[in-house]
């Protein structure tokens, strides 16, 4: 009799998948407007050069060409804005050079847009672009952060001396210095966090439209946050008021952060549509994605831990150089500061921490948040350092973690680097993971592998992250130029079905299912009677979009608040219909009842009354059942957990295979376990990709050597084993759902588990550390250099 349970905790199938797997998704490039033109963007093939001359005459005369624009044509509009301002140690604001939509005077990275050709067909635009006569005079260039801060390094921007964007710090330097002075041991580790190309399956695309009769602009774009794009592009770049600019982010095929940012192409097609009075579409080719989508990571760090004789962490000192690329992307300055340095307490009670972060410009593609954003960098540094401490001191890797864990009864826990953790149980996730991974049985598996000539290793990572971004006042005080609340509008229709208008955006996460399940749970409506609307500024209220694992913790909480309003109003209507006091009305499973009686009105009946208010307390309440709520979180949320990785290395070739991977995460309240598992699996796949395969390689001058899938190694299904994924949850204490977030945990927790396993496998070769990716060549070089295992010497 009872309908299948569809509320919080049910692994219902994803509502959106029928459309995706049957080819009925509606992506930006699927959208075509009458009289549409096509844009091709001519990009720099040089890392750094002065633009001597651009002659567009031949391109303009080519068949089908309607317009050619260069930086000179766009000089009157604004540069691409940065959404976060960091101040240096000395109080000065970060250096924030203009990021022109089309290059002005100089090109600063391979891929920097120089000109746009607009023609009747994409082919004609591309043909005409070959007729552009562009003279560039090469300038000296740099790609790596270490080269960028060398005294004689060429400058990417004249106004950024030493290529420095900012030189920032956090923590108590004196306390850290004092602790180091008294430490029984100090363990130091130099490490890099490899640069990554996000490579969403759907390349970026943008389609600008302009209606000369109304002056209305529409931008269809591959974005994770259409309202943010409307604000940034409208207010700061094109000078268009919000009511004249609609931004639609329809189905979007993966983002991983790379589609948060406001990109030049969005401004180009919108502005150009207004110029040529016709729609203008641009879709990236994959090679363009490699040199125009913001990259991720790219840190060079030194970490030092001071320890007492028992291996308790006394103080942590970190120095990090991070690559901003040639210009500041939207979120970039925040990533290596407030999403990185503040995470360096991790799951440990380290009482004193001091972190210096120097952000530098280079002649490379801008770097910004990529799945995890700062937290994978922090986790890799800390969890590699902990294993290195074990290596250097001889303490057991698990034991040293136990000794330093924040105990489960210590929450809320204030770290020395600004964050206050609300909940967690690191011993619980550790114990569950050790058991699931059969940590105790590893020696036998290692011996069995050795008998086959294989090197087997096991590694662990006990990580923590901060997401559910973010309390607006807090981030405002840290330099954010935006609020980070979320919004939901719940519209109960006259016959009781529900539309949810959310400010979050789904680009693979499954919001159309998960968010609908919240309505099933709270309003007792069947899943089939709930639709989630997102991604169109003309339909949804002003929300901040999806990134930082925020959609459920922040967007879902806004929904709960809006549904609370629906229920409160519904009780008044039901009280009127049932001739009772609103205080006596209870709401459960979609029914309003008078407490202690069998008098009942369904949500549908109440909704119909609200929209057909013939018998209605019209003097007391308005018609309709349609409520909006904004929710500003009180704190970040703090997922954490334990990942265990087991690898086997073929010593003849240096090839590493991940043979087992166990992830036990604390993500707070789980709405749809199947979707959470999918999110964790995807994140772990990306984390293993970073650890073993992926690497954006520039030569020292700034040519991208891994500029296509021929040279950039994406993880494939056969690179990965079946994962063991479980959750061991404590509830978030400050949002109504108790949910923490699950989108990034896989990518955050996994890379150090993989590298710790690789280092463990190579322990007989005297390996203390190796940087990602642990490619076959790198491992073979280590084995080949050693020739004989150390133990055999």
């Amino acid at each position, binding site marked *: 009799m009872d309908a299948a349970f569809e509320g919080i905790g049910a692994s219902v199938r994803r509502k959106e998948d029928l459309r995706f797997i049957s080819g009925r998704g509606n992506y930006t490039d699927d959208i075509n407007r009458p009289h549409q033109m096509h844009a091709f963007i001519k990009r720099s093939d040089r890392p750094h050069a002065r633009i001597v001359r651009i002659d567009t005459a031949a391109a303009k005369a080519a068949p089908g060409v309607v317009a050619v624009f260069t930086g000179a044509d766009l000089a009157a509009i604004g540069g691409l804005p940065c959404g976060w301002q960091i101040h240096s140690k000395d109080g000065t604001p970060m250096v924030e050079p203009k990021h022109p939509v089309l290059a002005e005077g100089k090109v600063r990275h391979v891929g920097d847009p120089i000109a746009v050709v607009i023609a009747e067909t994409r082919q004609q635009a591309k043909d005409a672009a070959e007729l552009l006569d562009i003279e560039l005079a090469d300038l000296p260039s740099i790609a790596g952060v270490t080269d960028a801060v060398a005294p004689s390094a060429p400058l990417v921007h004249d106004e950024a001396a030493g290529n420095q964007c900012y030189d920032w710090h956090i923590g108590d330097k004196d306390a850290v210095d004092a602790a180091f002075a008294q430490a029984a041991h100090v363990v130091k580790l130099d490490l890099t966090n490899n640069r990554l190309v996000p490579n969403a399956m759907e390349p970026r695309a943008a389609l600008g439209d302009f209606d000369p009769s109304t002056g209305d602009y529409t931008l269809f774009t591959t974005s994770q946050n259409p309202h943010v794009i409307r604000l940034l592009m409208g207010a700061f770049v094109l000078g268009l008021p919000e009511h004249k600019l609609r931004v639609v982010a329809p189905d979007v095929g993966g983002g991983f952060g790379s589609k948060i940012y406001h990109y030049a192409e969005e401004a180009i097609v919108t502005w150009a549509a207004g110029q040529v009075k016709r729609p203008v579409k641009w879709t990236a080719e994959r090679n363009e994605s490699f040199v125009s989508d913001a990259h991720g990571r790219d840190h060079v760090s030194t970490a030092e831990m001071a320890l007492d004789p028992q291996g308790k962490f006394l103080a942590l000192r970190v120095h990090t150089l991070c690559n901003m690329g040639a210009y500041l992307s939207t979120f970039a300055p925040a990533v290596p500061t407030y999403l990185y340095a503040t995470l360096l307490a991790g799951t440990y009670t380290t009482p004193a921490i001091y972190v210096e972060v120097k952000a530098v410009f280079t002649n490379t593609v801008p770097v910004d948040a990529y799945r995890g954003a700062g937290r994978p960098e922090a986790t890799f540094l800390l969890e590699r350092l902990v294993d290195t401490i074990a290596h250097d001191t001889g303490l057991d890797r698990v034991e040293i973690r136990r000794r330093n864990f924040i105990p489960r009864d210590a929450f809320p826990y204030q770290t020395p680097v600004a964050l206050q953790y609300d909940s967690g149980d690191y011993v619980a996730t550790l114990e569950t993971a050790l058991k699931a991974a059969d940590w105790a049985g590893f020696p036998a598996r290692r011996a069995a592998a050795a008998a086959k000539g294989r090197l087997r290793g096991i590694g662990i990572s006990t990580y923590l992250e901060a997401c559910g971004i973010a309390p607006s006042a807090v981030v405002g005080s840290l330099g954010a130029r935006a609020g980070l609340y979320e919004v939901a509008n719940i519209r109960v229709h006259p016959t009781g079905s529900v539309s949810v208008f959310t400010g979050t955006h789904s680009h693979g996460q499954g919001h159309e299912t998960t968010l609908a399940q919240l309505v099933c749970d709270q309003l007792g409506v069947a899943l089939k009677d709930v639709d989630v609307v997102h991604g169109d500024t003309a339909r949804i209220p002003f929300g901040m979009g999806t990134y930082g694992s925020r959609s459920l913790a922040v967007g879902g909480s806004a929904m709960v608040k809006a549904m609370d309003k629906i229920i409160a109003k519904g009780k008044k209507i039901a009280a009127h219909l049932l001739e009772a006091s609103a205080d006596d009305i209870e709401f459960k499973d979609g029914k309003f009842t008078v407490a202690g009686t069998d008098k009942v009105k369904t949500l549908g009946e109440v909704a119909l009354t609200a929209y057909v208010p013939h018998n209605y307390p019209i003097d007391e309440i308005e018609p309709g059942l349609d409520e909006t709520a904004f929710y500003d979180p009180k704190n970040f949320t703090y997922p954490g957990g334990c990942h265990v990785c087991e690898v086997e290395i073929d010593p003849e*070739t240096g090839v590493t295979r991940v043979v087992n991977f166990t992830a036990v995460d604390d993500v707070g309240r789980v709405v749809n376990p199947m979707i959470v598992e999918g999110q964790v699996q995807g994140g772990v796949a990306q984390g293993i990709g970073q650890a073993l395969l992926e690497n954006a390689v520039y030569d020292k001058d700034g040519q991208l*050597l*891994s500029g296509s899938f021929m*040279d950039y190694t994406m993880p494939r299904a056969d690179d990965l084993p079946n994962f063991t994924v479980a959750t061991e949850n404590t509830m978030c204490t400050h949002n109504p759902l108790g949910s923490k977030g699950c989108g990034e945990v896989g990518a955050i927790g996994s890379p150090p588990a993989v590298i710790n396993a690789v280092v463990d496998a190579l322990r007989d070769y005297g390996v203390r550390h190796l940087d990602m990716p642990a490619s076959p060549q790198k491992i073979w070089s280590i084995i080949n250099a050693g020739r004989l295992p150390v133990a055999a010497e």
Partner: protein
Amino acid sequence: MYDFTYQKPASLPDAVKALGTEDAKALAGGMTFIPVLKQRLNKPSVVVDLAKLGLTGITVTGDTVTIGAMTTHETVANSAEVKRAIPGLADLAANIGDKEVRHRGTIGGSLANNDPSACYPSALLALGGTVKTDRRTISADDYFQGMFTTALEPDEVITEVSFPIPQKAAYAKFRNPASRYAMVGVFVAKGPKGVRVAITGAGQNGVFRHAGLEAALAANWSADACKGVSTPADGLNSDIHASAEYRAHLIGVMAGRAVTAAG
């Protein structure tokens, strides 16, 4: 891609004639050529599609396997006759690219293109096969002339490829982690032409025979015999995935594995 004229002739003479046009290019499976066109790295005047010439099929006689030039990798991989006669060749075909590529890519296309990372050139060279064209027969030893370079004339069309059936043969490939082309591929064969070892993916001039491995394996056909043979790194490719030294090392490892697979 740039505009071009497309032709799909129904006879070999017509195809050869069409290919006589300046800047004409032949299209077999297109698994390299079409991406090259899409990237505007080639600007042919005419693209001559060889699909209607009937150049498909596999024939096995007592001592020879003959494969039509337009036979796909998938067909070779699944051919019971090839599996029986030269299992190493079927295995090589079964591991080229991915399933989509194997259903389009052809043996003739692979050999005509002679990509230095392609698999088939190593089989042809190690087995001492022959390439038959519209006008002549070319032995493997004369056919390969450096990377992307062969003995073929611009308007010459491969019609079939023949392999003498060896006693033992196998291919072992170390894939480039990103592209999954051969970073080092070693084909070993022991047959009517003696012991021959051909290396693909590693050399700056494309596929080559390895005299040291051939001598060692002629004396002692075993994986262990490969261990004593060192390969100089000179003349080997070096890139972000593998140094010349690493490739040189992998040649020995893959040769040993190929010998083990050959039995």
